[in-house]
């Protein structure tokens, strides 16, 4: 998605400050969804500090944002271990309009509950692909797993979501 623009010129790669300004929001939100608001700023800072030291090793095999999110993923794991943070959650905000609500057959409350029931691995791929907007390949690079694994996990994640929604509807009846 952002691969073309994120490759950056050689001049941009030398300016970690410019990179931070461009990608800070994405990294911050990534961290906030995994370690919480309290630790998000620290984790984001650590991500860019690590990126600053490893910038010379960046070969451009992936986009810059993907590379940064890969670093952020590791930093989030480290921070989660240190501060014993809870596993990432997918929260849905009630921002949709009434019209938008009528167009969907999805019950948001049921979907929120279903998302909470997902396992950590499934929740991670859903966050990466659905929320952060990474492609299968980019998600695979961030998680360090094959693309097929991401595909499989997403399939199972949504299958579980559908199953949970079906059960919710049956109970509601």
């Amino acid at each position, binding site marked *: 998605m952002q691969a073309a623009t994120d490759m950056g010129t050689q001049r941009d790669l030398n300016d970690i400050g410019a990179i931070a300004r461009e990608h800070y929001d994405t990294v911050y939100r990534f961290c906030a969804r995994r370690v919480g608001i309290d630790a*998000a700023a620290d984790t984001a800072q650590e991500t860019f500090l690590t990126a600053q030291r490893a910038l010379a090793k960046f070969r451009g095999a992936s986009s810059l944002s993907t590379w940064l999110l890969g670093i952020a993923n590791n930093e989030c794991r480290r921070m989660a271990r240190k501060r014993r943070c809870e596993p990432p959650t997918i929260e849905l905000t009630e921002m949709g309009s009434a019209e938008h609500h009528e167009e969907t057959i999805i019950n948001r409350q049921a*979907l929120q509950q279903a998302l909470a029931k997902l396992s950590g691995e499934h929740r991670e791929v859903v966050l990466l692909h659905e929320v952060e907007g990474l492609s299968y390949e980019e998600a695979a690079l961030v998680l360090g797993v094959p693309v097929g694994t991401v595909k499989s996990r997403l399939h199972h994640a949504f299958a579980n979501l559908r199953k949970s929604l079906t059960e919710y509807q049956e109970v509601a009846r």
Partner: protein
Amino acid sequence: MNMREDLKAFIDNEVSEQERTRILKEIENSPELQAEVIELRQMSRVIKEEAWQPQPVGLERTLGALASGGNRTPWWMGKSFQWAFGAGCIVIFAAILFPVFGQSKDAAKVWNRSSGADESIALEATGGYSAAPSDMKSSAPSEGLFNGSPQLDEKSKGTAGEWRDSVAMKSPAASAPARNQRGMTSTMPNIPPGELPSADAYFKSAQPRFEIKTANLAVEVIDVPKAQQEAETVAKAVGGRVESSQKSDDEGQLASAELTFRVPVASFETAVNRLRKLGRVLNDSLSGQDVTGQVADTSARLKVMKAEEDQYVELLKATKKIGEVLSVKERLSQVRQEIESLEASNKVLKSQAAESTINLSLTEKPSENKPRQDPEWSEDAWSRAVSSLSSVGRGLGRAGVYLFVFSPIWIPVALLVWWLARRNRR
């Protein structure tokens, strides 16, 4: 290939063109798949559109960290750890040093208390400050004690200390008790504190001191007869004499000699030092016995006895009756015997004090059959290194014990400081 597994990838455009065509065909022929596609798309859209989007903060701080180089310091160089370590060290040093200062303060208090007590005792015991040394000698028996009576005053018997006290109590120069600068009473007249001499200085000036010094030396020499001659030469050179000499030179045994010298007390140390140089000193002991009190006591009693003798002589002249004459003569004889005894005792003490005794024991150095080998430098270095290592180990062990014992004190302080530092950093 499972159609349903590829359905999500199809929706996300993550399949190849060929697979896409195949899947579309399947979906068109299956209402069930169509419903599933719709459901999956809606779930995906809801999640995408309504997922929580936190508001980013902390960009400036991150830029600042990046601008400063962002060098991560080792944990032991971090400010949090340094503060915590410093606080722990301060607590440990305070805990160690404070008892030492406390002991010093206590020692100072005890010293001040004892100095004040000594001074008060000195002031009361030497109430004869008012009497000069010469005055004490002349006024002793006739003025204060006897009042003309031939009978001995009970207080004149006993030790010299009691004699001094009795003189002080009955001396006409003694005034009413006065308070000195410390508020302590004394039997001395009102002399300004700065002019008061110490008790020890007073006694030193009042009468000479008599000390019987004895030295016992055991020296190993190569040639005993030669060393004996040298020892005798040393004794004579310092003005002394050989009091006794005994040699032993049995066959098959080491030669030895036992010598006793009497040297003037002023040359005592010089003689001992020279005798030490005759060979290897095996044993060396010096002792001194202060007999000043005994001499003073004997002298005092002697004066009293002589005064009594004079009294009896006068009485004998005045007595006419034979019975009284015999009685006085008998008493006079007893007194004279006591005087002679006291004079002899005094003479012995003074003689012993005037001439110190050196007991010298000379023994022949045994011959060595095999030459003494100096330890090799490597053995010496090894033993020194092992000794140093054990010292270092003991030191580290001691430090570890201190750290462990004081851990209930410094660990909480260090943790608190570390926590505060991390909190401030956030």
